[in-house]
């Protein structure tokens, strides 16, 4: 047994490459997202991979959101009690809400849940 012919090897190799390629592509597309909302409406949606600072103008002033090394936090906010800033880096799946400035930042966790099924 085990007499794979040249074309068989080709098919096996091509199939394996296809499967691995799809896995890698999916791993890429499953990267985390950052969703910034103002007044409950999505204002900015961006990747968690790109280091950047986002400024968003709420009723009280500018909230600055920092994305660095795959993490996200509210770096500065005009809200009086600074709850969302003191929360620090937002855990995957978590969110920081600067209620007085009507800004929320969500670390949309990558991955599947039952809803995807």
């Amino acid at each position, binding site marked *: 047994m085990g007499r794979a*012919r040249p*074309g068989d090897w080709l*098919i096996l190799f091509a*199939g394996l490459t296809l499967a691995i390629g799809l*896995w890698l592509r999916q791993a890429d597309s499953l990267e985390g997202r950052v969703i910034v909302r103002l007044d409950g409406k999505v204002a900015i949606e961006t990747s968690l991979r790109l280091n950047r600072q986002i400024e968003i103008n709420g009723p009280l002033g500018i909230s600055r959101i920092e994305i660095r090394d795959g993490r996200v936090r509210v770096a500065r906010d005009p809200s009086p009690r600074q709850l969302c800033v003191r929360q620090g880096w937002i855990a995957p799946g978590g969110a920081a809400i600067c209620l007085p400035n009507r800004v929320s930042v969500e670390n949309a966790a990558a991955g599947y849940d039952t809803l995807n099924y």
Partner: protein
Amino acid sequence: MQLELHATLEDRRVAALAAAAIGLTLAEAAIPLPLPGVKPGLANIVTLVVLYRYGWRTAAWVAGLRIVAGALALGQFLTPAFVLSLSGGIASLLLLALMIRLPARWFGPIGLSVLAAFAHIAAQLLVVDAWLLPGASILGLLPLFLSAAWITGLVNGFAADHLLHTQESTP
């Protein structure tokens, strides 16, 4: 009055082979599997062996009978599971009809088995996407199902290859 059925030798052969395939289908249904939709597809070993030994027509008969009778035995006839099984079966049979014409020196049962498994799962995912779960992101499951098809296709291909060789050596 007596109704008589005249079964030719070919009919008997198809029946016997289909019975083997149905047996594998039923046995396989008893194996608990971690994911819905991922099955070893052992009955396809029979389809491949028949394809090589008796040609595509007989293989299509055996596969068709296995799909219908297997679904009847499992109580799945005309359910979505049956439609999925049928669409996968048709897709892989069509592909095999093309592949069997390729030079045998280059392409053997192992390659055909893997390609047929791919055709099988591709057709099923298309049916799921178009009919059963429109809108759901079936594409996200593609790598998983393709990998499973690669493995099961390989294993079934080796099994068919082995059977074909051992059958050749014994008269």
